Every structure is written in structure tokens, then in C-alpha cells.
């Protein structure tokens, strides 16, 4: 091929490329001038909830900023991996714009300087008053707001109506400690030939979460403030080994003595949906163990008692509120836009369809009680009953030492389950270890 031919071919390619480029520019004049912004996020599974939220929020954000082309690049990870990934991002100072933080991790990541202080932004936003007080406080650490608690969950008593009926048990009799244990025995006797156990008792790592409601309903606390800390003046001190705590743990011991086997595997309600248990104390996420198309008639098959069993009739029950907070890392290079994304995601008209699809509970009054409530009430079984539990809901401490304290409590519960120690001794030892973790003892 001679030089002339090469020059001719190159010229033709150049002209065609120019025509295409000019044509594309005329066709998309605005896109070409738009500022490209990609917001990054690290979030916890399940992915569907984030897909629903980001789909709408991204569209809204782009409408608000016609001069920008905003994209959201989000990574969804299993629960444990989310924490590891956040830690890695923190150590590597990776620029991330949005993270989902378990409410109990908030203190660690805030104290560590990973999360941005959102207090001033929230004040200008003016929506704090819409949040249930407990949920608003759950996003705070040392009086500053580091996370917006987006949705919550409660734990309650779920039961199969036909199985209770077969055993001749009235659901109301499950409301008291004595009734709960007596009925567990009765259910085991009647249902064991079918391979069904009477009631479920968590023996997995979440066992403290299912013990706290008994502690709270008896007036106890996990931790309380105390003066005289060697370095911090006033600081948290273990309070879970109080009389209330011991009585609460004795109730778990009574359950084991009655033949209820602690389940080391926790399948988050799947075991109930598979009819392996007639009664289960489980979170509101249990609904997602049933196909969505069954939700319409689900209340005919399964029942819900919006409470934990109480020691005696008349005692106010308690439950634990869990859920995810949304935070903005200090490393974010688009903090303003990330805040806009966050606030768009929690707007009732954006959030409600996701809550409806996944069966989560709101942390905002306008969704819980306002105009959106009717919509959710008609589509989520027992929505009204679950919402009523928010008022008796408590949250776990979100101080940095909490994961270690929960581990000590878990150990105490296990020791009681396996008959190694009595509740007082187990809790006292856990409290001693926890006070060391909290820096009260060297």
C-alpha cells in the first residue's frame, strides 16, 4: 500500500469521525455540557430495598439538578462484610458518599471520625420533629447526629393459628410467662409427632436482643451513667446484672427447663414460615419469609401478639427496635449532594413504597400515623399492631464498647442455657468483664 492510499484512508476515517461527533453533539446538546457526578455507597443486604430507593431517589436528584448527570454506584454486602468493608474504607480513607450503619455500630464509627456530624444539616432541614423520638436518638452519639434512622423493626410473638387451635390453646394465654411456658409444653406434646416444636428460643448470637425486652419490662437497663470513671468522669456502667436482669434471665432458664431447646441456627423467620415452630418470638421481618402474594390472606393463617410475654397481667411489655441508619462518611467528596440523596431517600413518598414491598416499619410519624399509614395498613399484615409497639420499643446503646458488652451478655445467656452457671453468677461475671471493657477497671 502506497503513502497516498494511507493518507486517503486516514482522511476518510477522520471525516467520518468528525461527522459522527458533531451529529452526536447536536442530538445531545445538554448531556454534553452536564457535570458528571457519581455518588458511591456501601450498604447492607438485601439489595432489593436499595434498588427501589435509589431508582426513585436518583431520578428525583437529577430533576433537582438539571445541570448534572448524577449516578449512584452502590455496593451491597452481607451484614458482617458491611462492617468489615466500612472498617477497610475507614482505614484506607476511601472516598464514599453514603453508608448504611447498624444502629449499634454508630458510636464506634462516629468516635473513630469516620462519620460526618449531621447536626447542623438536620437543623436546616427541619424534619427532625417528624421522627419518633427513640429513632431520632438512635442516630445520635454524644449529643450529635451522625445517622438518620431510615426504617425500623420490632420483635413480637407470631403464631400459627391452626397449630394453636389443634393444641387447644388460646393465643391470649401466651401473654404471660407462666402461660407461655405451660403452652410450650402443651404444644410440644401435641405437635412433636409432626416434627413441629412448640416455641422457638434463640440460642444464636442474637440471644441478647431477645433477652433485653424482659430486662426492660422489669425496669432494668443494659447500661447506666455513673460518675467516678478513672478517665472520663461520668461514663456508662453495666446495669444489666440488676434484680430485673436476673429475673429476666431466670425466665429464659425456666424455658430451657421446660424442654424448650435454644436454637443455635437462626433463619430469621424462615423456620416459622416452614412450620417448624408453632410460636416464634421474631422480628417484623418475619413477614418477608412469606411470598408477597400471600400477604393478603396471611392474617387468616398466622397471628401476632404485639408484645413479649409479661411476668403478670397488667405489666407493660417491651420490645427492641432495630434497623439501619444512613450516614455520610467524612471522606465523602460530595457531602452536599450525599445529604440531598439521603434526605430524598427518606422522603415519605420515596420511602413508603419500599417499606410496603419489604414489610419494614417507619421511623417517621407521617408514615407511621399520617396519610401513608392507611396505604401501608392495607398492604402489610398486622401493620397497625406492629406500629403500636414502637411506643414500647427500646434501643441498644450505640457506644463503641457495645459489641464487646453484647458478647459478654451472650456468654452469660449461654452459660445459663447450658446449666453451667445460675443467672446471678453469669450476669455478675459478664458485668465485671464489661466494666473492664468500659474502662472502669484496669
Amino acid at each position: 500500500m502506497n503513502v497516498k492510499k494511507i493518507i486517503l484512508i486516514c482522511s476518510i476515517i477522520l471525516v467520518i469521525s468528525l461527522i459522527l461527533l458533531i451529529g452526536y453533539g447536536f442530538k445531545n446538546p445538554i448531556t454534553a455540557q452536564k457535570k458528571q457526578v457519581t455518588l458511591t455507597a456501601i450498604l447492607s443486604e438485601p439489595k432489593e430495598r436499595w434498588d427501589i430507593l435509589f431508582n426513585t431517589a436518583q431520578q428525583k436528584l437529577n430533576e433537582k439538578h438539571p445541570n448534572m448527570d448524577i449516578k449512584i454506584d452502590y455496593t451491597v454486602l452481607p451484614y458482617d462484610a458491611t462492617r468489615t468493608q466500612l472498617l477497610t474504607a475507614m482505614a484506607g480513607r476511601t472516598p464514599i458518599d453514603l453508608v448504611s450503619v447498624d444502629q449499634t455500630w454508630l458510636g464506634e464509627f462516629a468516635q473513630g471520625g469516620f462519620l460526618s456530624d449531621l447536626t447542623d444539616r438536620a437543623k436546616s432541614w427541619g424534619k427532625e420533629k417528624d421522627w419518633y423520638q427513640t429513632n431520632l436518638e438512635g442516630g445520635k452519639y454524644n449529643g450529635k447526629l451522625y445517622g438518620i434512622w431510615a426504617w425500623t423493626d420490632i420483635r413480637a410473638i407470631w403464631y400459627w393459628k391452626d397449630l394453636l387451635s389443634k393444641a387447644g390453646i388460646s393465643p391470649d394465654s401466651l401473654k404471660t410467662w407462666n402461660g407461655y411456658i405451660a403452652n410450650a409444653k402443651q404444644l410440644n406434646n401435641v405437635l412433636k409427632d409432626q416434627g413441629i416444636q412448640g416455641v422457638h428460643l434463640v440460642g444464636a448470637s442474637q440471644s441478647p436482643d431477645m433477652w433485653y425486652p424482659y430486662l426492660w419490662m422489669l425496669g432494668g437497663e443494659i447500661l447506666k451513667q455513673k460518675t467516678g470513671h478513672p478517665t472520663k468522669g461520668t461514663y456508662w456502667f453495666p446495669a444489666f446484672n440488676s434484680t430485673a436482669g436476673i429475673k429476666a434471665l431466670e425466665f429464659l432458664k425456666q424455658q430451657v427447663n421446660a424442654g424448650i431447646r435454644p436454637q443455635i441456627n437462626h433463619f430469621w423467620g424462615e423456620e416459622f414460615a416452614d412450620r417448624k415452630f408453632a410460636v416464634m418470638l421474631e422480628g417484623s421481618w418475619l413477614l418477608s419469609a412469606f411470598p408477597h402474594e400471600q400477604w393478603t390472606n396471611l392474617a387468616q393463617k398466622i397471628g401476632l401478639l404485639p408484645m413479649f410475654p409479661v411476668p403478670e397481667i397488667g405489666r407493660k411489655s417491651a420490645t427492641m427496635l432495630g434497623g439501619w441508619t444512613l450516614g455520610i462518611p467524612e471522606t465523602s467528596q460530595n457531602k452536599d449532594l450525599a445529604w440531598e440523596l439521603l434526605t430524598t431517600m427518606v422522603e415519605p413518598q420515596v420511602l413508603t413504597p419500599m417499606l410496603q414491598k419489604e414489610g419494614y416499619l417507619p421511623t417517621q410519624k407521617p408514615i407511621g400515623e399520617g396519610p401513608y399509614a392507611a396505604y401501608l395498613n392495607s398492604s402489610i399484615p398486622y401493620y397497625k399492631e406492629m406500629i403500636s409497639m414502637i411506643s414500647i420499643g427500646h434501643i441498644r446503646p450505640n457506644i463503641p464498647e457495645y459489641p464487646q458488652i453484647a458478647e459478654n451478655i451472650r456468654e452469660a445467656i449461654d452459660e445459663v442455657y447450658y446449666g453451667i452457671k445460675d443467672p446471678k453468677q453469669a450476669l455478675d461475671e459478664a458485668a465485671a468483664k464489661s466494666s473492664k471493657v468500659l474502662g472502669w477497671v484496669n
Partner: protein
Amino acid sequence: MLFKSIFRKAEPYLFLTPAFVILLLFLIFPLFWNVYISLHDVSLVNLLQGWTYVGWQNFLDLFEDSNFQTSLKVTLEFVAGSVALQFGIGLLISTLLNQKVRVSGVLLAIFIIPWTISAVIAAFSFKFMFDESFGILDYLFEKIGLPSVNWLSDPNIVIWSVVIANIWYGTPFTILFLTAGTLSINPTIYEAAVIDGTSKFKSFLHITLPLLKPFIVINLILITMWSVNFFDLQLVMTGGGPMFASTTASLYMYRQAFEFGLLSKGASVGLILVVINLVVAFIYVKLLRVR
């Protein structure tokens, strides 16, 4: 001339440089960084701030921690059980596969399958199988009239349930490795032994085993190190419970560092595991006297 002479002398070192840089970046630096962290007070809370030098305090704290002591005992059970059975079963199967059976190639491919599966998936499968409420094992036990076993909730049994899962998961490596070793033995040696009237068992004992020795040592070192460091199965199947009965030292390390954010404590356990691995490798080499 001078330049050429210098280049000639430096040439071997230049060729070594890429390997040395990789070694430095990915092995030596992380190891020393780990040592540095273990001698300081580093947690999630002060990760981005100044770290205080604490000397051997992290190691002293560890040896005072009863849960860490338990984890060392559990590690010993887990590693001893896993290595003995993985090696024993692996050697048996690889020997059987070497008997010139037509289907041995297909069987080898089948035996390798567990090793190709992710450890997490294997762990979930065993978690479901061992479940005491709806696991297949207890169901089958019940069908044949045997009492059900608390595979995952009995502190005396749980580590052996994890060992069973690890044998299923890890034995294929031994089968593959020892089969490769067996194939490397010159068949004429066996032919000579047959002519001399040696039985199959005796030729296994006096020909196969001695000639396999280098493979056996490397295999033992590798499966021991992997078992010491492995925690995927325990994490998914039991979370280390009940009562820390399935918390091996590697799982203890992971939990300290990533669940509780105590990075220097985790780093200290990591270094102890390195030492354990080195000691075990040294013992194997010495015991089997490999040249």
C-alpha cells in the same frame, strides 16, 4: 568496559529484583506492619488518630483471656482432627485410585468437586444438614431408630461437626496432591517388586510411602497451615458457639479485629498463628527428615 563489568555483576540481582519487590510488598511489609500494630493500641475508635505504644501488653492480655485459652484448645482439636482424617482418607483414596481401574479418572474428578466449591457455600450446606430442627442427618437418624444428635448445640460435639465439614471440604486437595505424587513414581520399581514376589501391601509400605515422603511432608504442612488459619466454616456454621466451643484461634482473631474493632488484639493473635505455623512446619520436616 567498566559499565559492562558492573552490569554483568549486577545482572543476577536485577533479575531477582521483581520477585524481591513483590515479596517485600506483599509479604514482608504486611508482616512487619502487623508486628507494629500488635505493639500499639489500635482500635476502630482510634484508627485515624495517634496510636499509643503498649509493648507486649496486647500479648499479655491475650494470654490472660480465658476465651483465647479456650480457642487454642479448640484449635488443637480442630487441626488435629482435620489433618489426621484429611490425610488418612486422602492417602487411602489416592492409593485406591492408583490401582489402574478404568473409572479412576472419573472418580478423581468427582472427588475434586468439594474443593472447587466456596467454603462459605460448603459451610451453609453443612449448617442446614446438621440443624437439629430440620436437618437431614437427624431426620435420617430418626428414621433408622437412632437418637438425634445435637450436632451444633452440644459444646462437646460441635467442633467435631465442623471437623467433618472440613474433612469433606479439604480432603480433595490431599487426594489430588498424593495422586500426583504416586503418578511420579517410576512403574518399573513396582514391576521389579512384583517379579520379586512382593505383595501389594508390602510394596505400598516399602516403595510407595518412602517415595511419597516429600509429597506427604508438603501436604501435611499445607493442610495443617490451612486448618490453623481457616475460619470460614466455623463462622458460618456456628459463629464460634456455643460457649466458644467452636471458636478456633483464627476465628477469635477475626472476631476481635472485625466484630469488636480491636485491631491490635487481632494482629497479636495473627502473629501467634504465624509462630504456630512455623513451629508445626519445622516439626514435620524434622520428624520426617526430608532431605
